[in-house]
Every structure is written in structure tokens, then in C-alpha cells.
């Protein structure tokens, strides 16, 4: 009887969970919460694009070339943000573009994270020649301006969304590798790693299940900021005609298509770029907030 009572009373006294603690320090940063809000909205837009968008992103309305947005004279209620040069609905294209941008961000960030972390951990654990070889390779990749390197890779592989994503992943690889190597090295010097090793854990177990979880915080931040870079760089490649190809509603590609008309029709230019800005900004704000919340050293 008394036993059940104690258990019933216990929860309120218990310290708040680590998740709640995290949220508390994260929510202090208003920018980060706004960023998270925008991210959630984008995910919803992307997930329900088929329901929300009123038109197909690639359907061309032959009677509505370069229709201005609804609040300008000549606007049409069917096309709230106007249409582009071949009569496609801007708003619908933007909504479908969110799907692409999130897909690009996710694929690039996870590819770079997986490869980079594996390389970084291998370098930290193996040391010696392997360490030097991996880190020198990363130094060489870092020498080239990132967009130039991405452009060269796409030039070799041929233009297209997939190759552009691959190129951006390669370009962002050194960041993850250096970060995971550095934090793995500092963890390796700790006593708990020595203890696990003495207990007979093999190198793989040591790498991925002992050390890696303790290196995660900076990597999570890097992923969030890497999302922003990936979306920005992929859009830049699209803009240069090397990324997603028309009629794909990728925001950077839409801007490239707007080049011939933007002096007459500002909306063809303004909205896709604004969408890129808002998305990248949201991920950057979120990443900054995440870093402040996860890194106790930066807390004041």
C-alpha cells in the first residue's frame, strides 16, 4: 500500500527529463523557435503538396502567360502569385519546390554525414598513415572554393539534380570528417573508452557504440547548418543550369528560367529566391539555436 503511494508521488519530484531540459534552453532563443516553425511549415507543405497546390507544377496555361500576382492590376484569383513565362502557376511550383529542397537537404546532409563520420572516426581510430591520408585528402578538397569544386564535379558527371546533390555532398564532406575526427580524438583520451577497451570491446563496437554517441552533439549542429548549405549550393548549381533541369520546379532552376523575363515580370524572380532565403535562414537559425542548447560551454 505504502509502496504504491511512493511510486505515485515520485514523478513530480523527479528532475525534468533531458528532452525537456533541452527544450527549455532551446526555447530561450526566439530565432531558433521561429526557424523550427518555418521548418515544420515547409515539411507540411512538402508532404501535402498534392492537396495544397491548386495546379500541377508543370501544367502550362496557354491563356495566362506572365500573369501578375493577385494584388496587381491584371492579376487572376486562380493564380495568387502569378504565372511564369509559359503559364505555370508560381505558387504551385513553389510548393512543389519545397518538396525538392527538403529532399536535396536530407539526401546531401545524410550522405555527407554518413561518409564524413565514417572517414573521421576511421582517421581518429587508425591514426598513422591512414589518418594522414584521409586528412590530407580533406585538405585538398578544402583548397578549392566550394562552389567551384561542385561545378567541376557536375561538369564531369554531367548536369542534373542527382549529380548536383552528389557534388554538394562531396564539397561538404571535409566539414563532417574534421569535426567527427576532432571530437572522437578528444573522447578517445577519456577513461571510459580505456575501460571499454579493457573490457574487451572490438574496434567497431568502440567506434560506433562507445565513442560515436558522445560525439553526436556537434555533428547534429553541423547537419542542421549543412542542410542550409546544401539547399543554397544546389540552388546555385540549378541557377547556373547545372542542377535540376527544367521543368523541374526547383527554386534555383526557376530563377535561371526567369533570367530573360525578370525585368518585365518581377514576381518570376522575387518569389523563388525569397523561398530559398526563408528556407536557408530557417535552418541556420535552428542550427544556431541547437548549438547554443547542446553546447553547455557556450551558455552564459
Amino acid at each position, binding site marked *: 500500500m505504502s509502496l504504491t503511494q511512493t511510486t505515485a508521488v515520485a514523478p513530480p519530484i523527479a528532475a525534468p527529463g533531458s528532452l525537456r531540459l533541452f527544450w527549455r534552453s532551446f526555447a530561450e532563443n526566439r530565432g531558433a523557435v521561429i526557424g523550427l516553425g518555418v521548418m515544420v511549415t515547409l515539411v507540411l507543405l512538402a508532404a501535402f503538396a498534392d492537396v495544397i497546390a491548386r495546379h500541377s507544377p508543370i501544367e502550362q496555361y496557354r491563356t495566362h502567360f506572365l500573369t501578375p500576382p493577385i494584388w496587381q492590376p491584371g492579376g487572376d484569383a486562380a493564380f495568387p502569385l502569378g504565372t511564369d513565362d509559359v503559364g505555370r502557376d508560381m505558387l504551385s511550383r513553389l510548393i512543389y519546390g519545397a518538396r525538392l529542397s527538403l529532399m536535396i537537404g536530407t539526401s546531401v546532409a545524410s550522405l555527407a554525414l554518413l561518409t564524413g563520420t565514417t572517414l573521421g572516426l576511421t582517421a581518429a581510430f587508425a591514426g598513422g598513415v591512414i589518418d594522414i591520408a584521409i586528412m*590530407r585528402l580533406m585538405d*585538398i578538397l578544402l583548397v578549392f572554393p566550394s562552389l567551384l569544386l561542385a561545378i567541376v564535379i557536375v561538369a564531369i558527371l554531367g548536369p542534373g539534380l542527382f549529380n548536383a546533390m552528389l557534388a554538394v555532398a562531396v564539397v561538404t564532406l571535409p566539414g563532417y570528417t574534421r569535426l567527427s575526427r576532432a571530437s572522437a580524438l578528444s573522447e578517445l583520451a577519456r577513461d571510459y573508452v580505456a575501460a571499454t577497451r579493457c573490457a574487451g570491446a572490438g574496434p567497431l563496437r568502440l567506434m560506433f557504440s562507445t565513442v560515436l554517441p558522445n560525439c553526436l552533439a556537434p555533428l547534429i549542429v553541423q547537419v542542421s547548418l549543412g542542410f542550409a548549405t546544401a539547399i543554397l549550393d544546389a540552388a546555385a548549381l540549378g541557377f547556373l543550369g547545372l542542377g535540376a533541369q527544367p521543368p523541374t520546379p526547383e527554386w*534555383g532552376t526557376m530563377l535561371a528560367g526567369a533570367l530573360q523575363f525578370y525585368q518585365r515580370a518581377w514576381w518570376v*524572380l522575387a518569389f523563388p529566391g525569397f523561398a530559398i532565403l526563408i528556407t536557408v535562414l530557417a535552418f541556420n537559425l535552428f542550427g544556431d539555436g541547437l548549438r547554443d542548447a547542446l553546447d553547455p560551454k557556450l551558455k552564459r
Partner: protein
Amino acid sequence: MLRFLLGRVTLIIPTFIGVTFLSFILLHLVPGDPIEVRAGERGINPAQLAELRHEYGLDQPLWKQFLDYEMQIARGDLGQSMVTRQTVWHEFKALFPATIELTVCPITFALLIGLPLGVIAAVKRGSAFDYGLMGASVTGASMPIFWWGLMAILVFSVALGWTPVSGRISDQYFVQQWSGFMMIDCWRSDDAGACRSALSHLILPTCVLGTYPLAIIARMTRSSMLEVLHEDYIRTARAKGLMAPRVVIVHALRNALIPVVTVVGLSVGGLLSGAILTETIFSWPGVGHWLIESIQRRDYPVLQGGTLVVGILVILVNLGVDLTYGFLNPRIRR
């Protein structure tokens, strides 16, 4: 000091070889045979193909080809454009001043505005100004500059007519080329109109390309100043009764500048990335524009040589920053 210098210089040799290897492998990764690509759609008969392959050393083993390539670069030969038949170095040399203009001006612009803004934000920490500047800074760092540049053209050139849309100078002026730097050449030609025209062409690209470094510099200056302002020597300076501006500018800023200067130096690569986009938007006849065109024309030797030069340039700039840093800060010389 000499040991530090030699150490840093030897460290770049493997990077250097790696960069040349990367640019060497570039041509070999392009699908198809380089000679057949060069011959284009006209085609080529097998006997000629074999002969040309031999002439270019393509029948040699890969390591031999790489050694030959290294020797070729050591002689200063970066290859030849397939389209214009000019050497890559010749083309690069002619276009490079335009790109330097488009690197130096934005950095100067960013420093002139970013430093004071960062200092003010640090001194008035927590104020509306501080929050506003940090918000603007993260926005600037998230800006897709290709869009930003086009929007600037739309507003300032097309709608308001304040600045020209593209190019380096109006067609009506002919300026004798001497240094390749438009401003210097205009100055030498003593033509006030040409000077004004060149300057007005430079304003918009400078502001657009300077946005990202401006955002980063303001942010770095602020956080670096905040750190320094907590140091004991600042308290000592204040306790001595020195005026607040003197403490901030002479005592704090000088020490806060070191990380900022490093960031500026290391961001040269980033600026060159931005220059590719900015040059494309403003039709600026520089290296970035040239590289993009080389892709569109499938002029692979230009892409290869140009990328290599840019890579070497970044290595040298980074080395320079490293050495200056060691010079400024004796603690890292060991």
C-alpha cells in the same frame, strides 16, 4: 622564425601535389576519350586517333602521364584552350585583374561597415541594435547571392536607374589597357567620365558580393569583442580612468582583430565562389565567368587549368594568412 616559415612551406607541398593530381584526374574522369571529345562531331579515323593518342601521351600508363603532367606544370604550361587556341595562362592573366577588383572591393566594403557595426553591437550588448544586427547578419549569411544580385539590378538599375545593369564600363569609353585594373587604367587615362562610369559599374557588384563577408565580419567582430571586453587588461585600462572610446578602440579592438583578420584571409576561397555567381549575373569579364563559359563550351583544358590556378592561388593566400598570423601572434610560432 625561420623554422616556422620553412615548416609551413613544406607542409603545403603534399597539398600542392594533391591539387595537381585532382586537376589531372579531372580530364580522365570526363566520359569518353579526350581526343575523340576534342575531335568533336566531325569524328576521327582509328589511325589518326592512335597517332594523336601517342602524341598526347595518352597511351602511356597513368602514373607516367601524371609525372609528365607535373613536369608540364613545373614548366608553367597549363595547357591550351580547345576553342580559342590561346594558352590557359594567357587567358587567365587577361581576366584575373577583373576578378581581383571583384574580390578586393567587397572585402574592403565589408570591413569598413562590418567592423564598426560589430564593435557597436558588442558594446551595446542586448540592445535593440544588437538584436537587429545579429538578425540582419544571419539573414545576410543565408542570402542566395545570385538572387540578391538580380533583385538589386531590378531595383537599383531597372526601376530607379541609379547604376548600370552590367559590365565594367560603358561602351562609349575606350580606356587604354595598362594594368588591367579598370579603376587604375581610367585614372591613368585622365578621363573623369570614364572613371565615374567604371566606379558606377563597380558599386552594385561590390555591395552584392560583399553581403556575405559583411554578415560574417560583423558577427565575428561582435563575438571576438565580447570575449576581449571581459579580459583583465580591459578592466585595468578602465580602472586607470581611460576614456571609454579609447579603451574600446585602442585596447579591445586591436586584440579582437586577430581572429577577424584570419577569417577575412581564409574567406578568399569563399569570395571566389561568390565571384563565379556575381560575375555571371553582372556579365563581369572575370575568371568565374570564364570558367562557367568553359563548361558550356566543353572546353575541358580551360576548366582544368583554370581550376588548378585558382586552387594554387587559394593555397598561397592561405599560406600568407598563416605566416602573417604567426608573425602577429608569437605564441603559435612553436
